[in-house]
């Protein structure tokens, strides 16, 4: 089976600044991949290129077997940005209905999917409330629920658990694992290093390149450290030498 994301020798230049030099990244169906790296490393640029918001200057960016940018394939990708990107004057349900329709989900299917995703992020009782009355965590959860709409084959989540309580964070990760077991692919960027341990493979993005890309346990063994956090620090230290 072909990988859901297949990025080879991806290069991206803004003006004179080379943001991505040579990025190789694959996400297989039924796999959660964590993308970690310091801010400014180009994580968002990788994601934007995958979604067709930016065009690669070199290399190939195949998403679900389609060279990006491509509009139609976006219906099969669930995307959650760093900003919540919600319509504040609308209720949670109205937001879900609107984005659902944009993704091409409609009618009975949309209603049942809204019920399901609301349950996953624990917002069932707050669906009729306006988003402007939501707390930061609730907004984050609603944003995640929108990404889950349409039962996409690929989920791209940019910092999904910022501002979410530990108990709910666990619930979200349980849902991500459930989706993985159902054969979906998930790409997650995160700053929380112990979350990186929950992924199947971790990609370490530093200096425009993927320096290390393997299972968390194997990376820890390779760098001879006990946690991903220390792998991160060690890799950063090596780069500076």
């Amino acid at each position, binding site marked *: 089976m072909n990988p859901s994301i297949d990025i080879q020798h991806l290069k991206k230049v803004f003006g004179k600044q080379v943001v991505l030099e040579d990025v190789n990244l694959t996400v297989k169906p039924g796999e959660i991949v964590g993308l970690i790296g310091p801010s400014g490393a180009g994580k968002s640029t990788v994601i934007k290129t995958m*979604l*067709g*918001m*930016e*065009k690669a200057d070199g290399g190939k960016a195949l998403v679900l077997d389609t060279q990006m*940018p*491509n*509009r*139609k*394939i*976006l*219906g099969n*990708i669930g*995307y959650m*940005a760093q*900003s*919540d*990107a*919600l*319509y*504040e*004057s*609308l209720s949670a349900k*109205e937001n879900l209905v*609107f*984005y659902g*329709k*944009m*993704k*091409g989900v*409609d009618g009975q299917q949309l209603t049942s999917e809204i019920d399901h995703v609301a349950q996953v992020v624990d917002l069932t009782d707050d669906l009729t409330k306006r988003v402007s009355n939501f707390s930061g965590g609730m907004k984050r959860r609603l944003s995640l629920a*929108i990404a889950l709409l349409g039962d996409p084959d690929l989920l791209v989540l940019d910092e999904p658990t910022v501002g979410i309580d530990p108990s709910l964070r666990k619930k979200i990760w349980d849902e991500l694992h459930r989706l993985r077991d159902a054969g979906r692919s998930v790409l997650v960027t995160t700053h929380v290093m112990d979350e990186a341990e929950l992924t199947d493979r971790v990609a370490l993005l530093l200096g425009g390149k993927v320096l290390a890309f393997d299972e968390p346990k194997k990376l820890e063994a390779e760098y001879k450290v006990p946690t991903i956090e220390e792998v991160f620090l060690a890799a950063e230290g090596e780069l500076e030498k």
Partner: protein
Amino acid sequence: MKRVLAIAGRIGRELLRDKRTLAMVLIMPILVLWLLNIMFSANTTTSVKIATVGVDSQITKTLDKTKHVSVVKYDKKSTANDKLKHYKVDAVLTETSSNHYKVTYANIDPTKTSVAKAALKAAILKGKMTTMAKTSAALQAQLAQLTGQTAQTSTIKSSAGSTTKITNHYNYGDADTNFFSKMIPLMMGFFVFLISGMGMLGERTSGTLDRLLATPVKRGEIVSGYLISYGLLAVVQTIIVVYSAIWIMKIEVVGSVFSIIVINVLLALVALTFGMLLSTLASSEFQMMQFIPIVIVPQLLFSGIIPLDTMASWVQDFGKILPLTYAGDALTEIVMKGTSLANLGGDICALLIFIVVLGSLNILAMKRYRKV
């Protein structure tokens, strides 16, 4: 199409919940119209006091009869000038020699000066006319004794006099209608421009545009959704503005109100696409506000509120690239002459071209945020 309607519905719902913006769009124009109406009626009732020294009684009588003009007679020039100095009178008229007049204006308020000027001119002219009429009447009386045709000639005289009066009234009417057909589209265009621009800007800064473009929606569908929702808002706004202009300002509309709405909606769509386009150049609400003078002032100056006939040809040509020129022209035709939409093809075409060009530019500009 489903997506277009969903986007239009969503914007409509957001607008309905934004009470302050709604009030600005729907109530503000009425308030502005009402204020302008007050300013207009204040202008026409400026009253002037003119002091006369040794002026022919014929002229002072005519002056006194003129609306909003009162005359005070003084014997000495020095007393009259004293009154002028203390703002008791607005002008002093002295007859230096027969048929030679000298006027001194206080000129505190230019409106009063111009009213006094006009009144004096009319009175002196009329005075001459009466003298002439008297002379000619005397001549005619002599002639009549010869031919017996007095009655006919004097009828002609009086009808000539009343014609002059009608032209005056027409001038005022013209000023009002001009105001209606140029000011209202400007005002409408302004509100739609600002609100749609802000709406698009908000969508961009809050990240919802990015997220929207991360779904398979077409860029054209987003622009169409905006056109439909704000177009409907413009219809409601036009109806309110037009009817309040008719009721509050008592403006007579010869043509159909429906035609006025059509033209205004077209103009609103131009303003909308232009506002959206400019919003891509702004990175904050404050920067959006800075576009207002750049966009509004040229429209105000060049679109015919101030007559351009006597200006250099490049000025007149510049007016042709402004959408308000066409909307104002079409509205003048409808309001004053009752021209039907079918006969306004040129203006409608020009507005449609603006909409199509600006709309496509918007779709193109959105490519910045998604490459397909």
